[in-house]
């Protein structure tokens, strides 16, 4: 069984999700970790380069991280190769002639087990497979992308507020704020907590729609789907569209002053009370807990 892992790098390093997939691929069969060289390569150009290599390599299964770029290239590659594509898988198994995967459907409201004939292409969520302690850094093969006719990169426009943190979809801990935080000023306190936890920032749609936080931080049906070890929901009511994006988190903490808020129905730990009283006290307590006190 030949397995490809599409490598994704950040600052020259293989992303964690690529390493998770490399470890999984080695268990599934004969693994090749493969990278498309070049900056700002369009999905079509990347898929063409990979498809060319696939002519000789003939991978049975291609795995990519379910990151925006991984999903984009994986989908286009599956179309180029006219193969099945399964996106945002949380588990992948092979049984000879087909691949079976677990994935969300209906905006994450249903968990599906699906089967597709091999060869196939899957994008896989970060945190789906464990890293092996002490495993050697995988060897990365590369292909060179050609031009994408009709499409050129013009410029990059950075978002003002989002520097320096782990990305939402890969984060192990997320601190997420809702309308209960009353305004963008409250994020100074949210960030102080996130710093102590090494967490990424999330938000409800009420918050991104109000422009308190950038769109890319939104969690939910029309935002990101996240699966961290710890999700802390501050002043979030728990609307069905928000829950769709975060109920697969391992541990959920909710803080809300309304005891009947729906978020408590999915919480492992909840505190009914004022988030502004909670935040500084909890930030201090986490500092102490981490210091072993």
């Amino acid at each position: 069984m030949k397995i490809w892992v599409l490598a994704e790098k950040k600052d020259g390093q293989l992303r964690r999700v690529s390493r998770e997939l490399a470890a999984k691929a080695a268990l599934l069969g004969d693994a090749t970790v493969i990278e498309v060289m070049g900056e700002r390569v369009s999905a079509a150009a990347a898929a063409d380069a990979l498809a060319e290599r696939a002519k000789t390599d003939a991978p049975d299964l291609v795995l990519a991280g379910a990151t925006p770029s991984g999903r984009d290239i994986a989908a286009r590659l599956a179309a180029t190769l006219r193969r099945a594509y399964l996106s945002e898988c949380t588990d992948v198994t092979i049984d000879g002639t087909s691949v079976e995967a677990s994935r969300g459907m209906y905006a994450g409201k249903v968990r599906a087990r699906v089967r597709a004939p091999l060869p196939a292409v899957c994008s896989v969520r970060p945190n789906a497979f464990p890293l092996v302690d002490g495993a050697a850094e995988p060897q990365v093969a590369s292909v060179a992308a050609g031009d994408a006719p009709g499409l050129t990169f013009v410029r990059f426009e950075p978002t003002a507020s989002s520097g320096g943190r782990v990305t939402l979809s890969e984060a192990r801990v997320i601190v997420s704020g809702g309308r209960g935080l009353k305004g963008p000023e409250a994020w100074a306190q949210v960030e102080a907590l996130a710093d102590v936890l090494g967490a990424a920032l999330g938000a409800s749609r009420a918050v991104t729609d109000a422009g308190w936080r950038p769109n890319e931080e939104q969690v939910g049906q029309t935002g990101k789907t996240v699966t961290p070890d710890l999700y802390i929901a501050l002043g979030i009511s728990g609307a069905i569209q928000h829950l769709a994006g975060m109920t697969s988190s391992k541990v959920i903490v909710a803080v809300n002053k309304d005891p009947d808020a729906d978020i408590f129905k999915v919480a492992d730990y909840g505190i009914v009370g004022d988030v502004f009283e909670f935040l500084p006290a909890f930030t201090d307590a986490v500092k102490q807990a981490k210091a072993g006190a």
Partner: protein
Amino acid sequence: MRLLICIKQVPDSTTRVKVAPDGTSIVTDGITWSISPYDEYAIELALEQKDNAADTVVSVISVGGPRTKDALRQALAMGCDDATLVTGEGADTLGPLGIANALKSAIDELKPDLVLCGKQASDDDQGFVGPALAEALGWPHVAVVTKVAPSAAGTEIWKEVEGGHEVWKASGAAVLTVQKSEKEPRYPSLPGIMKAKKKEIPERPVTGVEDPVTIEIVKLEPPPARGGGKIFKDGDVKAHAAALATLLRDEAKVL
């Protein structure tokens, strides 16, 4: 400029989806159907182009069964100029590559300058039809698009990436898969609704469309039940906060 938006009809976002007794489908009784959320953002993006340049024509197309007409009518009521339904036996069971092929043959005739899809449909959550359609057409595509603007000899396209936006330029036709943007999709206006009621929605047959792979649903399940958590209801929030930190470290082991 002619813009075409591919829309899918899906259960409304407030639907509590229930798995049917067969374990491989969902209960459709009582579901309110609507346009998939990202497709609504795509419609909004296209209608904004029309607001800015009145000679812009905004069309919508969908592959599906008879009830799909309601979604197309909703798009007309929002302000789209015309709608096409690709339908016939099997139209509502086609897989993504089949849908892409059905859309391609319509697009070959309709000849839009840009095609917009949603980033992903909120029923299968796949995000495959857009890139597959671009591939079938032999066009480039840009994913996670939040904004477009006409520019000298082409279209500038904003793609959301980590930490900001990449701006790309398409010199000719392209497929864009649209992300939520700051601008909420507009509601249908009353005159819009009246006008939409009277519009003809031409149909194209889905016959002869090729669907190279079948994805089988082995099992559907509700997400694992949650709840029964420890909820601190009364008393001092600060004391609870301190207790919580210890629980997260020693009991949940996530600190």
